[in-house]
């Protein structure tokens, strides 16, 4: 059973990778299993300077999901290249750098910095973080801004660029088309859905940041819908994510149009989530009559 998938810049031995922000820079989970087993690794978001992120509490539990407002905490792109990439470079697993910024200029600088690092195979362009905006307009919810930041990053780097789309939009297809037009090599879908929880004892929003991003199984139907819609209108390959916890979920994403998938929140419940899915996947594909991962991609679309 072939699990291999070819995406721009990425030869994946299997389509499973940990999602950005849910796997740090790999060190912690490398104590549970060999990172060589993963299809790829998406690093935590990098910004130009070190960021300390939001105040705590930063996470809350919800029904079949969680809210997070980490706030792009990271040591800054230079430290990541210096301290984190070399660790991950010990593995024969492609590294995808998730990049974020507050301005076009910052995106450009972060993208250029990674461009010089041969161990980084691709960029994932995080335009869907709520605190990522320029002139008050969020990159992630305005097609024009999304196109602009995509172009800027494409110009600053030779690496393939996967633009990570926000679900907090009316028209996900318009967003996808805009970044395709602007030169994106692929899409990552979806980032978290903005939500909130009120802490009853304190009568205030539980998260220090008030709102946070909803992830986990709760949002899977939203992710599937958006991928299914986008797949029919753009020709870019899609890395799908949002609530994946089992190989069955992975197949649902493949059928909806994803060519590979990322697993986020599920790692927190089960540190072996990614490897257990990889082990299960051949069996699951076979049960539903597929001879390879490739055969399943987009098969849910008539």
């Amino acid at each position, binding site marked *: 059973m072939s699990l291999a998938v070819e995406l721009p810049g990425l030869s994946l031995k299997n389509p499973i990778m940990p999602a950005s922000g849910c796997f740090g820079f790999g060190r912690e*989970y490398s104590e549970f299993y060999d990172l060589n087993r993963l299809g790829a690794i998406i690093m935590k978001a990098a910004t130009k300077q070190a960021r300390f992120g939001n105040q705590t509490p930063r*996470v809350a539990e919800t029904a079949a999901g969680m809210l997070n407002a980490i706030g792009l905490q990271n040591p800054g792109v230079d430290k990541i290249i210096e301290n984190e990439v070399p660790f991950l470079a010990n593995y024969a697993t492609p590294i995808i750098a998730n990049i974020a910024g507050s301005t076009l200029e910052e995106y450009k600088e972060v993208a250029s910095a990674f461009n010089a690092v041969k161990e980084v195979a691709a960029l994932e362009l995080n335009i869907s973080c709520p605190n990522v905006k320029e002139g008050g307009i969020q990159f992630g919810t305005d097609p024009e801004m999304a196109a602009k930041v995509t172009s800027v990053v494409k110009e600053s780097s030779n690496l393939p660029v996967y633009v990570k789309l926000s679900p907090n939009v009316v028209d996900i297809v318009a967003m996808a088309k805009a970044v395709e037009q602007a030169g994106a090599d692929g899409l990552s879908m979806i980032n978290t859905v903005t939500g909130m929880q009120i802490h009853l004892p304190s009568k205030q929003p539980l998260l220090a940041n008030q709102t946070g991003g909803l992830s986990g199984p709760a949002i899977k139907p939203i992710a599937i819908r958006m991928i299914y819609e986008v797949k029919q209108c753009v020709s870019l390959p899609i890395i799908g994510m949002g609530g994946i916890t089992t190989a069955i979920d992975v197949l649902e994403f493949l059928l909806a149009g994803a060519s590979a998938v990322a697993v986020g929140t599920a790692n927190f419940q089960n540190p072996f989530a990614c490897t257990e899915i990889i082990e299960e996947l051949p069996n699951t594909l076979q049960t539903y009559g597929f001879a390879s991962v490739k055969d399943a991609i987009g098969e849910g679309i008539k």
Partner: protein
Amino acid sequence: MMRKENMIIKHTRIIALDTIEMVLENEYISQNAVPGQFLHLLLTGHMLRRPISIAQVNKQENTVTILFKVVGEGTRTLASNSIGSTINALGPSGNGFPLEPNAHSTALIIGGGIGIPPLYYLANELTKKKINIVSVLGFQSKDYVFYENKFKQLGRSIIVTNDGSYGEKGFVTNVLDQIGAFDCFYSCGPLPMLKAITTQLKDIPGYISLEERMGCGVGACFACVIPAVPSGGYKKICHDGPVFHTKEVQLS
């Protein structure tokens, strides 16, 4: 090193109002846990695991004891598990209390409410190293008092209740001047208590165990950070803690 392990519930017992003692069997965790470490427990129907401190270990019987207070849905689910059933845990998690004082020195233990559990395992281990223990244990009220006798067996113990319904009335900090001399202190409890203590005892070497809402519990998600001093960076409570030297972190 932390592992993902199944633990079998051997005993459960109510030890105070809403407070449960549970004995869990697992060889790996019982053999490797040190005082201050915690378990990260997976509970049916819950997205996020729950961190619960290791309150005692029995290496002969391969068991770990936890003490927890039912405060919400997760701890309610935990309490409802029946004897013989299995709970999945990551553990032993985090870094424990340094057992560094010399033999025959005196260590002060200051616990508040459901922050007391890790201090019990600690107190036992310190006693084994022939360190003298004085314990100050604070509770909301008489109904919540637990493990008084167990601590008394290890050394002098002062119970404080906020409403004065048992022991001394007030906060643990009210009685610190009755203790006499001690060489270092260890504390775990609500943040306001820890702040008051670290201010009051700022010239004495001390270790505190901190709590924060956790995502991964392994150091990968940056949910549980606390500002570090003097570096200006952050520490992750799940991975770099939960135990810190008082001078290492900035309590906000």
